[in-house]
């Protein structure tokens, strides 16, 4: 009898516990669902404007104004893209964007790698002081340098010249790039380089033959971050370049859109063309981009 009562009590307890667990599980499921909904809403908020952009880039004005904003056009009007690509100078702007971005990335990576090499691999006392000197650049607002730069480039006849843009991009991206490289150089083993020194290799041979190839992964990361910053840069290009043949996509589309002020499809197509290279890069290189932005997060 006693035993039976005990087992009954035990089963009751077990049942209660199971019920509680069940309740906890339900509560957990509900809260997880709510969290997912919140996260999804944030995601939709981040992506939806771009989806809408692609939709209206494929419509004509009548369809933009009369159809629901979420509706697909009856036939996608790819001619918007063909028109803006052939009518304006978008091809030229695109070429300039590639030229300035590419040149500045190569210079920045080379100079930043050289400086980081001197700061971490060469033996001298003042290296931390010089590291600080490079890093202070991260805190300088662009606008505090704009008038002197404009003045200097005017005096040197470099206004409306690609060189003013390429050099400025290189200089302003050096601090962030050195910061990204520095972290990698610090943890990279030095044995290979030291062995080369023992063998009597020259500094150039060590740098170009050993260090640069060994730092290829971080160079890729830094290059992508540089590419994004340069491709999207606006203040310098807007200030130093006014001649149409030297404009990049960012300022070019700004003026170009002015002409089409009421033609939504053309504006949409122009914007999609301008952001497409970065979006494609992101699809293929998202992990590296994420890594680069985390490593270089001081630049805001």
């Amino acid at each position, binding site marked *: 009898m006693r035993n039976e009562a005990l087992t009954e009590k035990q089963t009751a307890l077990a049942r209660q516990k199971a019920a509680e667990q069940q309740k906890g599980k339900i509560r957990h499921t509900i809260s997880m669902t709510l*969290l*997912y909904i*919140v*996260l999804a809403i*944030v*995601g939709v908020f*981040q*992506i939806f*404007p771009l989806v809408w*952009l692609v939709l209206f880039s494929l419509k004509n004005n009548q369809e933009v104004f009369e159809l629901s*904003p979420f509706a697909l056009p009856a036939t996608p009007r790819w001619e918007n893209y063909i028109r803006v690509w052939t009518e304006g100078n978008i091809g030229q702007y695109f070429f300039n964007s590639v030229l300035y971005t590419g040149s500045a990335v190569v210079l920045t990576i*080379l100079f930043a790698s*050289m*400086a980081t*090499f*001197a700061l971490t691999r*060469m*033996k*001298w006392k003042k290296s931390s002081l*010089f590291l600080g000197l*490079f890093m*202070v*650049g991260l*805190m*300088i*607002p*662009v*606008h*505090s*340098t704009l*008038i*002197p730069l*404009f*003045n200097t480039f005017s005096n040197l006849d470099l206004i409306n010249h690609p060189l003013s843009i390429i*050099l*400025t991009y290189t*200089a302003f991206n*050096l601090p962030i790039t050195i910061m990204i490289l520095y972290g990698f150089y610090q943890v990279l083993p030095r044995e290979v380089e030291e062995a080369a020194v023992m063998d*009597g*290799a020259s*500094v150039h041979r*060590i740098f170009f033959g050993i260090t640069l190839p060994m730092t290829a992964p971080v160079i890729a990361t830094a290059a992508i971050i540089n590419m*994004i910053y340069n491709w*999207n840069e*606006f*203040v310098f290009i807007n*200030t130093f370049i006014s001649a149409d043949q030297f404009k990049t996509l*960012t300022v070019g*589309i700004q003026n170009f859109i002015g002409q089409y002020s009421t033609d*939504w499809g053309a*504006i949409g197509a122009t*914007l999609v063309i301008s*952001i497409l290279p970065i979006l494609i890069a992101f699809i293929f290189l998202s992990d590296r*981009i*994420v890594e680069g*932005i*985390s490593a270089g*997060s*001081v630049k*805001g």
Partner: protein
Amino acid sequence: MDQALSSKKMIALYLAPGLLLLLALVYIPIFQTGYFGLMEWNGIGEMSFIGLENYTLLIQDAAFWDSAWHSLLLAVFSALSLIGYLLISLVLAGKIKGANFLRKIYLVPMLLASVAIAQLWMKIYHPTNGILNTLLISIGIENPPAWLAEPSLALFAIFIPIIWQYAGFYILIYYAALKNIPESLVESAKIDGASAWDIAWKIKVPLIMNVIKVTIVLAVVGSLKYFDLIYVMTNGGPNGASEVMASYMYGQAFSRFDFGYASAIGFFLLVICLLITWLIRKVTVSDEDIQY
């Protein structure tokens, strides 16, 4: 043995290109800005020295202080939105399926050119055909406002795309920091019966405090010098209602050709940014590992 790597000539050679470029295009210009700020100058003709006159003008310039107030509002708004990003990151960094995908989705706007973002959001806010007012009308709101043309709304209407642009960036930083917390710390707290809420606020957040402080510096300083979307979307208008310090400075220089006065504003901006960076860093300096 290390002779090759301690040659002064070689060290100078490897530092020179980067250092010279940085000196010529960043460090010397900021001193020039300070110098030009003491001049009356239209950008083309002769300069004349007027001492601190530009700065006395600056102190009395109500339009400038309006722009400074707007920059400050943006700084407060950006700093407060960090709380939201932190909450989202805490959820994401807990064992959520698809977290990696979501944080990449959040990041997409950050990769786009400000000009493209500005143009897109001008379309979103378009009074008659923009998606926002189309939605508002469809849920029965008559006469929705013309957002960017409304003096009382323009500034806040631009804050939204600024948030949209940078949200993914901060979430990414917090997420990375939270993922760095050793699993064992969280596990032992769980065994002690701590709730998820307690683990988040009493263990995780204090552990990433350094990162949080850095993001506060970034958000505040980034806001004080903010320019791009404001310049493209409203150019400070209507009637100065969305002007910020950087757009005001740009207008003084490149629309009104008052380069001396604009330089004074540029120098003021520099001092403010360095001061605030130093101030917030000072609070963090006691901590050992300053992370970026």
